[in-house]
């Protein structure tokens, strides 16, 4: 794409040249008319004067007088009875004897001639002039008239260039301002001095910068938080390794080793959580519009936890796990349901109960996971979704990210998670409501 400057320069120059040419054509037509009138009257005058003073009818023809050598005007006279001789000079050799009186045009010997004929009873006087003389004269005069304005074209070009430069000055200023910024400077462009034409662009840019700086600051906070959160498990790892090194008996060594392994698992869990969070970040490009079977996803998540439920002798009850289509991203929802099931299984004590059910209808489903664990007190039910928030009685292996990830995934699927109390099991009830957008309402 050409630059605005080039477009303006080319467009303006072309317009100026076109207008000049148009004016030339108009003037030329006008001058041609004038010259016709002028030369015609000259012809007439020559013929009249020749008739009055010129050769008599008896003069042997052709007697040719050149009235005006520059204008190639010639006059001849002959009597009614005579015919111009065949060896007469042009144009008279080819003129018919009975040429009509008045002005006429005639092609004689491949040249267009303008004739004026005076006729009376016994004599004819003809004044003639080649027609192209007139064109040449008209062209000459026109060029002389318009010539200076063509000579001024370079001046016009220079003025146009300056005007374009001046007009684009504010754009150049913004460009320079943006170019000179450091990559960290996301402050708004100063719109006070801007011409109204540039205002929409500048405002749109400012809005973009605002969004960008919000995103960047969120990410910066997140990275700072993550780095800070990593320090705790790493400190634990360091201490655990030191304790292992200091162990003086095999029993204590085994204990320290188990602790160290727990520490490593916890660190891994945190790293995995951070990765998942980054992958399902609102900026990430994942398809969230798929329609998939929620029950299959939930059954898969449950299957992963079966060994642990058996180990803890949990009674797992499933309700309505038949096919249920919802919209979202099945991989992400698998993480969501796995997190919720994982929490239920981990926090429910030996021999307790977990119930997993899907209720509702196609695309408007509720995934409900209940347990007989300790539950979460009302005042904490919002905070547990915060990144890195860990309740006092949270398990040591948790990363503090599980529910934050779940909430993020739910938001991207247009779903909401609500924590409550399970009435009949006594522990936590986690409900995920899948709410389709207006544009993906269930087909009948």
């Amino acid at each position, binding site marked *: 794409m050409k630059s605005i400057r080039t477009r303006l320069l080319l467009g303006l120059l072309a317009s100026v040249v076109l207008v000049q040419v148009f004016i030339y054509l108009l003037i030329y037509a006008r001058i041609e008319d004038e010259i016709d009138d002028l030369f015609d009257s000259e012809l007439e005058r020559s013929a009249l004067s020749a008739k009055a003073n010129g050769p008599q009818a008896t003069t042997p023809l052709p007697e040719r007088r050149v009235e005006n050598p520059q204008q190639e005007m010639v006059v001849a006279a002959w009597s009614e009875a005579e015919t111009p001789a065949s060896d007469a000079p042009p144009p008279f050799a080819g003129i018919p004897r009975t040429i009509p009186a008045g002005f006429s045009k005639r092609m004689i010997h491949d040249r267009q001639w303008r004739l004026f004929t005076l006729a009376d009873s016994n004599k004819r006087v003809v004044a003639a002039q080649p027609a192209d003389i007139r064109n040449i004269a008209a062209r000459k005069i026109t060029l002389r008239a318009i010539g200076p304005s063509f000579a001024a074209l370079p001046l016009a070009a220079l003025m146009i260039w300056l005007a374009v430069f001046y007009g684009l000055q504010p754009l150049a200023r913004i460009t320079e301002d943006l170019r000179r910024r450091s990559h960290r400077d996301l402050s708004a462009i100063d719109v006070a001095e801007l011409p109204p034409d540039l205002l929409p662009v500048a405002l749109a840019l400012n809005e973009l910068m605002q969004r960008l700086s919000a995103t960047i600051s969120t990410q910066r906070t997140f990275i700072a938080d993550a780095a800070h959160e990593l*320090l705790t498990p790493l*400190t634990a790892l360091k201490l655990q390794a030191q304790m292992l090194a200091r162990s003086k008996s095999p029993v204590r060594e085994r204990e320290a080793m188990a602790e160290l392994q*727990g520490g490593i698992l916890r660190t891994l869990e945190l790293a995995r959580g951070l990765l998942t969070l980054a992958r399902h970040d609102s900026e990430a490009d994942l398809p969230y519009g798929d329609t998939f079977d929620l029950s299959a996803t939930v059954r898969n998540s449950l299957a992963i936890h079966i060994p642990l439920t058996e180990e803890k002798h949990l009674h797992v009850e499933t309700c309505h796990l038949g096919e249920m289509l919802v919209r979202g991203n099945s991989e992400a929802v698998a993480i969501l349901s796995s997190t919720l099931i994982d929490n239920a299984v981990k926090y429910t004590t030996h021999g307790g109960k977990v119930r997993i059910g899907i209720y509702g209808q196609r695309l408007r489903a509720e995934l409900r996971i209940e347990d007989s664990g300790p539950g979460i007190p009302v005042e904490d039910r919002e905070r547990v979704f915060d990144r890195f928030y860990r309740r006092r009685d949270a398990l040591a292996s948790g990363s503090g990210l599980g529910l934050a990830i779940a909430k993020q995934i739910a938001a991207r699927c247009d779903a909401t998670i609500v924590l409550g109390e399970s009435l009949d099991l006594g522990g936590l009830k986690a409900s995920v409501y899948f709410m389709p957008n207006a544009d993906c309402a269930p087909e009948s």
Partner: protein
Amino acid sequence: MKVLLIEDDRMIGWSLRRGLVDEGFTVDWLDDGDAAVVICAEQSYDVAILDLGLPSRDGLKVLAELRHQGNSLPVVIVTARETVPDRIKGLNAGADDYLCKPFDFDELVARLHAVMRRRAGLASAVLEYRDLSLNPTTRRVVHQGRQIVLSSKEFSLLEALLQRPGTVLTRIQLRDKLYGWDGDDVGSNTVEVFIHSLRRKIGYDYIENVRNVGYRIPVP
């Protein structure tokens, strides 16, 4: 020496307690700031290790509350908040030392000893009394130029008495210095048993009985 460990991370707490016990400290471990304030009003400790990111009450508030109550317990802050302003805030709140996570365990132990030494007004780590010298860092006791071997409890008892010669320590105070709350079976005459075995090793003229009150090492 008796340490109060206030740390909410179970893994860090476990390792610290184990390491400190191995180093001969008596350790009480709390994972909550509110409880720490209550305990400090009732029990006496030689030093506290305080984590700042605690549930229910921030470590700095715990420290401020302790100082407000006039408690001069030496406190070493152990935290992931590592910026200079954070350190300044911690020290200004009344901490005796500030250690950033992740730290080295041996450094923590060295700093604990240094803090307690400063509190006792001692330039050197070694406690000296007549021909007896006790080094809390190396846990060596030298009597009349000869190294003697003490059990961990005997060592703690002697250390407590040597820190402030002339001061009488009650049986209860001594017992508290030897045991945490989850301590092994504490008999009523345990302190007497250890005093007895200690006297057998270092001689009878160092530890003085103060009738019906407790024990002390007389001012030389």
